[in-house]
Every structure is written in C-alpha cells, then in structure tokens.
C-alpha cells in the first residue's frame, strides 16, 4: 500500500502565499511538519512525496524538508520523491550530497532510482535488486557475482539508508 502526499497542497495549507514555490527555511519547517503529520496518519510502508505543481525549490527549503526527513526517518515508512523537474532535482541533489545522503526518485519506467551520494557498488546493487523484485542474499550475490559476505554488507547498507526494505529473508526495492 502506498500513500501519496501532495507537497504543493501542504505548502498552500502551511503558508499564506499566492505562489507555489518551496523557498525559505521557515517554509521548509512548516511543510516538513505537515509531511510528518501526514505520514503518522497514513498507512503502508511506502510514501510518495509528489512535487507536481511545485515551482521553485531552493536549497534552504530542500534542506529543511528532504534532508531532515531523511536524517530523522519517519517510522518505518520509505520515502520516494516523484513529480520533480530537472532544476528541482538538481537543488535536492545538492542538498543530499552536502549531507552525504541518498534518496529515491520515481523514474518514468515505473521503478525508482537513487540520487545523491551513493557508491557505484550500492548503485549497482540497488538496480540489480530492483530488476529481481525481491531476493535473498544468496540469490542476489549469485546474480551480481559477489561473495555472500559482500552482498550482505551492501544490501544491509542500502537498508540502513532506507533505499531497500528487508522482510527477512528477502530484500526488496520499495516500489516492487
């Protein structure tokens, strides 16, 4: 089950503005609080933060919303960003790299892709797992040609980064 949170609607509910831009730290704090409340009230392991109809996203606001949500994850929910335009994504990636973080973004093919700071091993592992749907360490390791120890270490790192779910004994990409 997936919850979709329309960020533009929360912006309009949080701030009195005729514009749809996510700018300033104080706006970011208000919108983040609204997102946290929506997540607390929602159900399911995956929440899509939908940026459709949002205008400009500045770095300060992106830091308050995206970075702080990722640094203090909301319960067991996995966050995925969707509806981002190129310039908005660029601002968010800047913030993610500043904090050494990564996030998932919906891609047009229906899956997700990680953005931000991620090593080549972690990136390979994510896409491999997403193509498999769900896999144990053994199946995953055989697929990528890694030892079980290396495969487990990489998958566990992805779980800690909340880019991959673990439902023992399977690892799953959130959108599978």
């Amino acid at each position, binding site marked *: 089950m997936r919850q979709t949170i329309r960020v533009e609607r929360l912006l309009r509910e949080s701030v009195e503005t005729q*514009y749809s*831009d996510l700018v*300033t730290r104080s706006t970011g704090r208000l919108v983040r609080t609204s997102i946290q409340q929506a997540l607390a009230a929602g159900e399911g392991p995956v929440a899509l933060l939908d940026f459709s109809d949002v205008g400009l996203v500045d770095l*300060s606001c992106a830091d308050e919303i995206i970075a702080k949500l990722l640094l203090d994850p909301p319960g067991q929910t996995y966050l995925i960003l969707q509806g981002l335009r190129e310039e908005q994504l660029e601002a968010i990636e800047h913030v993610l790299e500043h904090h050494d973080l990564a996030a998932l973004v919906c891609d047009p093919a229906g899956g997700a892709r990680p953005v931000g700071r991620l090593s080549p091993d972690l990136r390979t592992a994510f896409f491999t797992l997403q193509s498999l749907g769900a896999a144990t360490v053994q199946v995953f390791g055989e697929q990528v040609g890694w030892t079980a120890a290396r495969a487990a270490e990489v998958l566990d790192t992805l779980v800690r980064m909340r880019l991959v779910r673990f439902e023992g004994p399977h690892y799953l990409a959130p959108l599978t």
Partner: protein
Amino acid sequence: MSRVVEVPTWFDDRSFEQFAHSFSQGALTDRMLFDARAAQWASPFGLIAILTAAQAVREAGGPAPVFTVPTAEDVRRYWAKAGFFQHAAGLVEVHGRVPRIKPDEHSDVLLDVTPVRASEDVHAVVGKIQQVAARILHGELGLEAKATMGFAMALSEACQNIVEHAGTSGWVAVHAYTFRKRLGRRVVVIAVSDAGVGFRRSLDATQARRFGERWGDGAALEAAVIQNVSRFRDPGRGQGIAGIKRYLSRWAGKLSIRSGTARIAIVPPWDDDEPMTEHLAPFPGAQVQIVIPAQEGHGG
C-alpha cells in the same frame, strides 16, 4: 549644521566606497544631508545602499537625513520607476520634486526596490521575479531557459541571509543594464543590502576563536563565502552561498559581498576586481551583489 554625504554621480558597487567613506565620517546620530543632486545614474546596489544608510541612521535613533533628489529629470524618473522614492519617503526627508511613475513591466527594472523583512517577503520576491526573469535571462542574455530557476534560487538565498542573519530588515532590487566599461555586454544585477549585524558579529561566537588574531570582517567573509560556514551548528546550514557560487560558476557570474570594513568577491574571468579588500570605511550590515552577464554573442 548638517553633515553632507555625497551620493556619487555614477553610483555602483565601486563608487559605493566614496559614499561609505563620506557616511562614516561622523556618528550615525549626526544630522545628515544625502546630496544626490549631481547623480546621473545608480545601479540597484547604489539605490539600496542609500536606503540602508538611512535605515541605519533611523535604527541608531538619529534624525531622518535630508535627501536632495537628482537634478536631472530622467534620473529622477528612473529612480522613481525603480521604486526608490516610495521607500525613501519613510526614511529620509525628501527635498525636491519626485515624479509619479507607474511600474513598467517591460522596463529594465526586473524587481523594483523591495523590503525584505520576513519569509513571506522572500516568497513574494521569488514569485515576482520568475515572471520577468525568463524574458531577460533567456531572451536578452542568451542563457538556457533552465537558468531562470537557478537565478530565482540565488535571489532567494541572498534574501534569506537578511531574514536568517541580519537581525533587522533589508532591501533587494534587480535591474538589467549594459556593463560598458568592464564587459561591454548586458548584465542582470541582483543587489541585496541590510543594516544589520554584519558577517563578523553574526559569526563571532562560533568562529572568532578559530581565526584568533586574524579575526575581523575579512576573516568572517572568508569563513562564510569560501568555507561556507554559518553561525548555526546545524550541519545543513551554509548551503545558500555555496549554491549561489555554483550557479554563478556555470554562467560566468560574479558575487561580491561587503560587510563592515571588508569586501570579498568571487571574480569571473571578465572582471579585474580584488578577491578580498580590507580596511575599508565602515558601513552597517551586509551588501551583496550578484552579476549575471550575457553569454558571449548576446546582448552586446
């Protein structure tokens, strides 16, 4: 007897130093006359510098300076169109005839003089600028269409420095004009100024010890602009100026920030400014200027 502070004939970020020197020759509570009669032109930086000086006088409890308007009718009209007189009226005693001008959405004034007091003002500034910035940046300066968003982001972050750090309100203005001497091309200039605490006082508590004897206005600017340091311990802070620098590096833009007695600049290849200048005349708060030039082959 009033102390005369001359407004430079051509008032931009360079001639600002004459203005700051003249302004600093006595106490903020002196009776002052800002003499702009000889003024021929002012950049957005110059216009909001006058307002910042007047605001500092007001916040120090000094008498409202007398302001004599430019003698030249076309200069008065441009300053009126830029929204200068509308805000000056609350800070200085205006002497001279001020034309009533309606804003012209196709003029070179992309954003007239606008006060920045709170987050809501930044929302309004960013919302307003996007409507006109695309026309100038893409149409006249030859930047890619996506540059508009980055421009609005840079403007937003520059304005937020006032809200987050100045401890008082400030001003922003954005104009397009031709840099004849230095560049020979069209530019868009963002100017942001406040009469607040300035970079050194803002960073005193967290950075003074680290810099030791070197600590001063120049070191504070170096910490904020080069090292992306903020007064907040939140590790997410300090990204605003870093984001502005990144945007400017993409479009050969220039950033300069003056605070207290120092000035720092991120200098593009087309300019010959000093990266750091210290021991300048003291001036309240912080003054930021961002220059985006037309790409080569455009807007000459």
